[in-house]
């Protein structure tokens, strides 16, 4: 289970109120897309879920337990840029999570343990379609391949929640469509809840089970400082998408995509 409960969150930077009175219940296995104009605090909200920033007031619960005050292995993340480590190969990038979890001091695995981890990492790399690039460095990969790598790197941790901060925003449309298919498949196959920030409405409605819009309801210049953004729309997608189940009405739309497709 990995449900998120957000209760009456406020975020202020000094006098500036960024987010006000946000409450939302995100059910287990949901795929929530956060949309809204620039500067409306979507990314700030995502960072609070990540633990990178703290709410000024209010609480966030993951499975009924308050979130720790820093990022941890139960919440994976893919950013738009700088998500992968430039000094590690594709294999090294996926392996590093396993290594850091297993070896407390050296942060490296050796012998049989390393072999097992490599096997797991290679399977995941194949899943995101990067098998041919195992020994390449990120600088040798295209933007789309780097984001696939970032997904594999996050998923090897088997996170309860996967947080995506405009992960596909910098990709061109063809590549983006491909990676959407991949993203949908990964969501169907892995037991995780996904929260994604995006500017792209089409992307939001293609992938999500629920689209949540952030907006400043009072946005006159003199109101900007003292009124933050809040949730203005919360749209469930219909017919409903459910993780791991093909849609009865339009299976081609969002059924669990078959491997190799």
């Amino acid at each position: 289970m990995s449900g998120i409960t957000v209760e009456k969150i406020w975020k202020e930077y000094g006098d500036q109120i960024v987010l006000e009175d946000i409450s939302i219940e995100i059910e287990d296995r949901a795929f929530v897309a956060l949309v809204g104009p620039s500067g409306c605090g979507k990314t700030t909200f995502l960072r609070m879920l990540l633990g990178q920033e703290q709410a000024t007031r209010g609480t966030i619960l993951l499975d009924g337990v308050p979130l720790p005050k820093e990022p941890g292995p139960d919440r994976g993340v893919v950013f738009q840029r700088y998500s992968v480590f430039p000094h590690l190969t594709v294999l090294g990038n996926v392996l590093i999570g396993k290594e850091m979890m297993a070896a407390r001091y050296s942060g490296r695995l050796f012998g049989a343990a390393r072999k097992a981890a490599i096997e797991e990492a290679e399977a995941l790399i194949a899943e995101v379609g990067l098998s041919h690039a195992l020994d390449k460095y990120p600088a040798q990969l295209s933007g789309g391949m780097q984001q696939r790598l970032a997904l594999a790197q996050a998923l090897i941790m088997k996170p309860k929640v996967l947080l995506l901060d405009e992960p596909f925003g910098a990709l061109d449309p063809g590549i983006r469509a491909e990676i959407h298919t991949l993203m949908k498949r990964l969501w169907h196959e892995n037991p995780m809840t996904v929260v994604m920030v995006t500017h792209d409405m089409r992307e939001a409605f293609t992938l999500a089970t629920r689209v949540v819009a952030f907006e400043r309801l009072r946005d006159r210049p003199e109101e900007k400082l003292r009124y933050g953004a809040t949730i203005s729309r919360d749209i469930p997608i219909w017919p409903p998408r459910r993780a791991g189940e093909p849609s009865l009405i339009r299976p081609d739309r969002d059924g669990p995509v078959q491997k190799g497709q």
Partner: protein
Amino acid sequence: MRWINTRPSSGMRLTLAVAPFLIVLAAYVAGSAARLADNANDKLLPGLSSFVDAINRMAVVPDGRSGQILLWTDTAASLTRLFSGIGIAVAIALVVGMLIGMLPTMRALLAPFVAAISMVPPLALLPILFIVMGLGEASKIALIAIGVTPIMIRDLALKAIELPREQIIKAETLGGSSWQIALRVVLPQILPRLFTCVRLQIGPAWLFLIAAEAISSEAGLGYRIFLVRRYLAMDVIFPYVLWITLLAVGTDYILNRLRIAIFPWSELEKNT
């Protein structure tokens, strides 16, 4: 075509690169010939044949008194000091630089201190070092270390701070502790910078070395230059200066090749 778009061919590039060296050499030969024509015993700009003599005396024939070949003894003494000093500086700079770059608490504690220390002119400390540590090797190595460490610390700390915050966050979500992130994410990414940093500090390191050797020493390239200065022995000084320059250029080149060989990704990153 505009000048900014004009690129030399590879042959042209080589010619252009060699030209300044040849011009300086030609100017020297002309100047030397002119002075020697006036006075055959001129010592300021000796002719090329005197250089051959001097190099033979210093680098090939053993010294009459000590039985050693002076250039090699001097080079060994100087390089040992230089690399001991730089080695100590590298060790300190890596540890302190990473502490400042990664831990906000250590940054608050150490960054202002290091910033102040780096403004102390190292040569002004030389007398103190000689008084405290004696005239032996320790004070010379200490001068080099003191001279280059603060700047290396600041450079490496800056590089560590510059790492995108996203990478550190990502490492945290991959289960990394502070120590593991230091070891697996930050250290490997600042090591290439360390090589570059040492390359940039080679010049200052030589400066401190020669200054220390000039004042008190029994061997060393700087010592020799200042020793033969008394006899106006330009025929020895010029080759020594050239040799020091060659050593510095060689070190610079080797360090850069090493960086590319050990961290191939750092060169790839540069090109993206």
